[in-house]
């Protein structure tokens, strides 16, 4: 048998090589009957099963919640019912929608979340860019401050944050504003003096009353967002900084050489470049603001503005003294949770591609 390939010239630019192929059986044998192939298969199957199992653990709670949300009280005392309700009903959804002010909460939360998510994304972008691309004295100090805001838990600043916005005033600014002029400033200084005095004398210290109340409005959230101090904003700034550090300096340098100034470069070169990352940050800030109850309960505690945390509860029409009461109430609470996260699920389905991309590109790799 001729094992050497034969080369035939067909046309001017085409040649044809003919050689004997190894028989199919041999080829299959070489491909499939060896150890690495089997270890690969075993490894592949093993990986697949583990990932399936983990995904199951993640998704299972949602399955049960969804199943329970369609159940009527009868299902909860029926022992044979496990996941699929025997007496399905939309009562829970209907009651929560109509009685728990779902629509009001939806639109209020949408407004608040959109405002703060947009502000937070933009501010994180600005600050992250400033920290990543400019060397100035105090750069690392500012970075340290960012990390400090990340590390201090909410519980530590709960009281003082509430007090800050309940009696909002910076350097007695509003005292001056109210036409008291220098008297206000003077009051402020006297005030600090009084406070220091109270440390030694034990005489109670009373705060001045020029402050304004910002609680029960969106203002605390807006102020915190503008200044990059809201929930987890330190993380966003950190992520943006890491992302911008990965952007080559040559891009900006060429823009500078073409006569663009720093801010135009930022707006026209850097911002378009970082859209996936910004979508990631937006998704984070939007959904964490959406499900946030810490700040919303702290700043907006009355019923004047209905937000998402307020709708969790048992609607009047579903109140029951039935045998499965406890279980049923728990299911209703979970249904509230499902209705709260429904808009987020839709958002996540659209954005998750960017999310993974964004995080991978942020390359928190250093």
């Amino acid at each position, binding site marked *: 048998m001729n094992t050497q390939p034969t080369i035939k010239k067909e046309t001017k630019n085409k040649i044809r090589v003919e050689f004997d192929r190894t028989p199919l059986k041999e080829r299959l044998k070489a491909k499939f009957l060896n150890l690495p192939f089997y270890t690969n298969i075993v490894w592949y199957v093993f990986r*697949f099963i583990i990932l399936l199992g983990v995904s199951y653990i993640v998704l299972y709670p949602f399955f049960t919640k969804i199943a329970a949300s369609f159940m009527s009280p009868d*299902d909860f005392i029926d022992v044979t019912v496990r996941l699929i309700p025997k007496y399905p009903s939309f009562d829970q959804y209907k009651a929560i929608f109509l009685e728990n002010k779902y629509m009001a909460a939806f639109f209020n939360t949408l407004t608040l979340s959109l405002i703060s998510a947009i502000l937070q994304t933009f501010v994180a972008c600005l600050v992250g860019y400033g920290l990543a691309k400019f060397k100035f*004295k105090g750069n690392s100090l500012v970075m340290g401050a960012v990390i400090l805001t990340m590390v201090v838990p909410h*519980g530590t*600043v709960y009281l003082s944050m509430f007090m800050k916005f309940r009696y909002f005033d910076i350097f007695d600014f509003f005292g001056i504003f109210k036409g008291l002029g220098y008297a206000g400033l003077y009051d402020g200084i006297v005030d600090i003096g009084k406070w220091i005095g109270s440390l030694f004398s034990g005489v109670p*210290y009373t705060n001045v*009353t020029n402050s304004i109340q910002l609680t029960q409005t969106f203002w605390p959230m807006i102020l915190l967002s503008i200044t990059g101090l809201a929930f987890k904003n330190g993380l966003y700034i950190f992520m943006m900084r890491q992302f911008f550090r990965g952007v080559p300096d040559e891009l900006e340098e060429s823009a500078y050489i073409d006569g663009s100034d720093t801010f135009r470069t930022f707006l026209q070169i850097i911002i378009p470049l970082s859209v996936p990352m910004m979508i990631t940050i937006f998704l984070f800030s939007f959904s964490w603001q959406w*499900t946030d109850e810490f700040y919303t309960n702290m700043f907006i505690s009355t019923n004047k503005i209905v937000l998402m945390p307020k709708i969790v509860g048992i609607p009047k029409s579903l109140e029951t003294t039935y045998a499965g009461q406890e279980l049923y109430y728990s299911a209703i609470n979970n249904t509230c949770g499902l209705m709260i*996260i429904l808009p987020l699920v839709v958002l996540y389905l659209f954005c998750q591609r960017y999310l993974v991309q964004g995080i991978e590109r942020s390359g928190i790799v250093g």
Partner: protein
Amino acid sequence: MNNEKMKKSSSKKSRPASLDKRKARAGWIFVAPFVIGFLLIYLPIIVDSIVYSFNEIDPVRTGGYTLTFVGFSNYQKALFENADYVKTLVAGIQQLLLEVPSIVIFSLFIAVLLNDKIAGRAAFRAILFVPVILSTGLIGSIDAQNNLGEFMDASESIDTGTGQSTAAALSEAINLEALFANMKVGTELVEYVAHAVDSISTIVNRSGVQILIFLAGLQSISPAIYESCRMDGATAWETFWKITFPMISPMILVNAIYTIIDSFTSESNAVMRLIDSVYSQPDGNVLSSAMAWMYFLIVILILAAVAGIMSAFVFYQRKDT
């Protein structure tokens, strides 16, 4: 002559300085929103919080509030009078130290599994990240109120919805401790692993971000290194410990720190919940500040210790720039 030289050198120096200065100014403008907010809002809040923890606070009817300096009495109350604080604190820190390794190891494991090509990789990533987006804050607190686990297990009609009972049922079925009892690895390790398996749903739910950080790290390792390893005949096991592990070690540090911060600032944390509940008690607001500050200091110490110990073992690849 000498004078002239000095003049020359100083003028040479001043020219690039102006560009630097301009860049520095631009940098300050970029970080201005944060710096202003930090100085005017956040720093006062932090200082106030420390001040409050040494005071008693009373709102005044005409507006404003009264502070009375009481020294360390809030701290004393927290440590010696509150029945739960020390107990919860110790338990919380113990749990923190136990959880962090399992979360980091688990997320590294999953990231390695996800890094190679596999059918439905994108779907798996999306699913693993679901808890980060959906199970925080409000949903977390609804889940936390679902402590009807035993009742549900008894009726067997429906799960609590937290996934806790499935994992419990699973570990009961396997009975890990019996399985490992014959191996000579010491009971503590067996108990630790069994505990980790019991709380698998918590671990999975809390390692979303960590998995992504590890994935980012894994993808930054050059494929050429792996190729040369394979050429030299290294097995996958050796490659993992000799290449992947050292290359990923900075990420392990980052993830350990992230996990500690994440778990001690989260509201599902037992200590945080105690502090929240103390806050809503009458006269509890300053007490909760004192408690939170003590907790914060302890965790900062832990963070510093972990960062210090781990950074000794971290391998940084020199990038040729």
